[in-house]
C-alpha cells in the first residue's frame, strides 16, 4: 500500500506511520540521521562538560573554566531539547512539522549559547536570536506557498507528484533552514568557543548539520 516515490534518493522506506495524508517514515537515510541525533543526545545526557583551559591575558597563568550548578542543568536541558527537536525534524513526513521542528532547533541553539554568562557569548546569542527570528519568515512562508500551490504539505504526497513544490517555496525553506542553523557559520568568530561545555556546543552543530542534510533530501524529493 505504501511505497515512497522518492526511493532513489534516500532508499526504500523501512517504516511508515500514517496520520491521514501525513505519513511519517524512515528510510535508511533518515534512520541514519535519527541515530546520529540520538547518539549525540545521549552523549549530552550522560556526559559532564570539560574544563576548558585558558591563558590569563598578559600573564603565564592558566586557569580552567568550570560549568557548574544551574548553568549546567539549563544547558543540558536545552541540548536535550535540541536533540529531540532534531530527531523530529529528520523523521517528519510533513513540511509544516519540519519547519516547526527547525524553529524549535533554532530556539534551543539560542538557549544553549545564551545560558553562558560571558559578555561575548551573550552577544553571540543575541546575534543568533535576531537571525533565527528573521529566518522563521521565509521558513513558514515557504510552507504556506507550498500548501497554497499544491493543496498538501505531506512530503509523501509531494514526492509522488514531484516536481510539485514551487521553486520559490524551496528557496524560501532553504533560506529559513540556513537562518535557523546559522550558528556554525559564526564559528569563524571566537565567541562560541569561549563557551565551555563541549557536549552542548557540539549539539548546536549536530542539529544544524542534520537539518541541512534533511532539507537537501526534501528539496530533491519534492
Amino acid at each position: 500500500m505504501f511505497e515512497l516515490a522518492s526511493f532513489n534518493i534516500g532508499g526504500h522506506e523501512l517504516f511508515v506511520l500514517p496520520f491521514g495524508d501525513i505519513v511519517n517514515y524512515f528510510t535508511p537515510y533518515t534512520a541514519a540521521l535519527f541515530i546520529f541525533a540520538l547518539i549525540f543526545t545521549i552523549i549530552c545526557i550522560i556526559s559532564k562538560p570539560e574544563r576548558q583551559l585558558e591563558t590569563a591575558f598578559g600573564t603565564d597563568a592558566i586557569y580552567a573554566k568550570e560549568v557548574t550548578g544551574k548553568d549546567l542543568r539549563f544547558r543540558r536541558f536545552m541540548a536535550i531539547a535540541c536533540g529531540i527537536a532534531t530527531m523530529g525534524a529528520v523523521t517528519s513526513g510533513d513540511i509544516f512539522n519540519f519547519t516547526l521542528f527547525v524553529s524549535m532547533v533554532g530556539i534551543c541553539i539560542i538557549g544553549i549559547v545564551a545560558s553562558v554568562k560571558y559578555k561575548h557569548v551573550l552577544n553571540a546569542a543575541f546575534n543568533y536570536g535576531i537571525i533565527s527570528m528573521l529566518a522563521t519568515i521565509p521558513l513558514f512562508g515557504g510552507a504556506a506557498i507550498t500548501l497554497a500551490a499544491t493543496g498538501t504539505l505531506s512530503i509523501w504526497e509531494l514526492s509522488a507528484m514531484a516536481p510539485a513544490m514551487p521553486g520559490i517555496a524551496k528557496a524560501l525553506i532553504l533560506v529559513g533552514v540556513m537562518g535557523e542553523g546559522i550558528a556554525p557559520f559564526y564559528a569563524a568568530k571566537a565567541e562560541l568557543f569561549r563557551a565551555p561545555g563541549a557536549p552542548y556546543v557540539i549539539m548546536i552543530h549536530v542539529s544544524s548539520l542534520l537539518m541541512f542534510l534533511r532539507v537537501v533530501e526534501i528539496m530533491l524529493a519534492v
Partner: protein
Amino acid sequence: MIGYLIAAPFLGLLFMGIHRKVIARIQGRPGPPIWQEILHTLKFSFKETWVPRTASKTLFIGIVFVAIAIWVGALCVVLLGGSLLLLFGIYMVQKMVEHGVGLSPGSPYAKFGGVRSVISASSEIPLFAVIGGIYFFTGSLMISDIIQYQADNGPLLFSLLPAAIAMYIVILSKMHYGPFSIVEAKEIVSGYKTEHFGAWRAGLEISDAIRTVVLLMAFVLLFWGALSPLLLIIAMLIILVSLSFVCAVTPMLNPYDSVTMQLVIIVILVAWMAILGLIA
C-alpha cells in the same frame, strides 16, 4: 562483506603509508616504510591510555567509537550500493567527530583543531555540487543505480568532469599533509587529535584509514563504475598517488586562504556544471 570490513583498516593504513612515502620521495627524502602507519597504530594500541583530568570523559571516549562506527557504516553503504546522500551525510558527520574530539579534552590546541574543522565547512560545499550533478545526470542517488548508469552510458568521469573534480577536492581536503589540512596543522601540534593518545589514538587512526578507503572507493565507483577487486585497488592507488603529488608540491594554506580557495573553486565548478546542464 566481513572480509572487506576486516581488510579496510589495513588497506587504509597501507594507503596512508604509501601517501607519506610518495610525498617524501617527491620532496627528495627517503621517507618512512609504507607499513609505518600500520606499525604506528599497533604501537598506539599497546601504549598507556589515559583521559586528561580536564576532559569531558564520556565525550572524550565515546567520540572515538562514533568515529569508527560512522566510517564502518559508510563502507557498508558503498559496498551495498546504498544512497550517495547517506554517504555524504556521514562525511559531514565526520566534521562533528573532529569537533567533538577537539573540544572534549579542554586543551587549547585540540580546541583550535576542532574550531578549524568547523570553519573548514566550506570543504563540504563541493559535496552538494557532486550530489546535484550526479542526480541531474543519472536521475538517482543510489550508488547501485549510478554504477548501472555508467555500465550503460560510459563513465561519468568524462561526461561530468566538474563533479569529479569537486569530489577530488573533497578527498584532497581530508588527506594528511594536504593544502587544506588546517585541522591538523603543525602550529597546533596535532590539531584536534593532540590529547588523544594510546588506544583512543589508535581508534582514530583506524577511523582515518577506513575513511581513506571509503572515499577513494566511492570516487572510483561514482565516476568510473564497477571494477574487479584488483582493478579497484589499482584505480584507488592511482588516485591516491595523484593526491600525494598534489600534497607534496603545495604548501599548507592558512585557514583563511584554505576557505577562500575552496569557495572560489566551487563557484567555478558550479558554473561549469550549470553550463553542462544547459547544454544537456
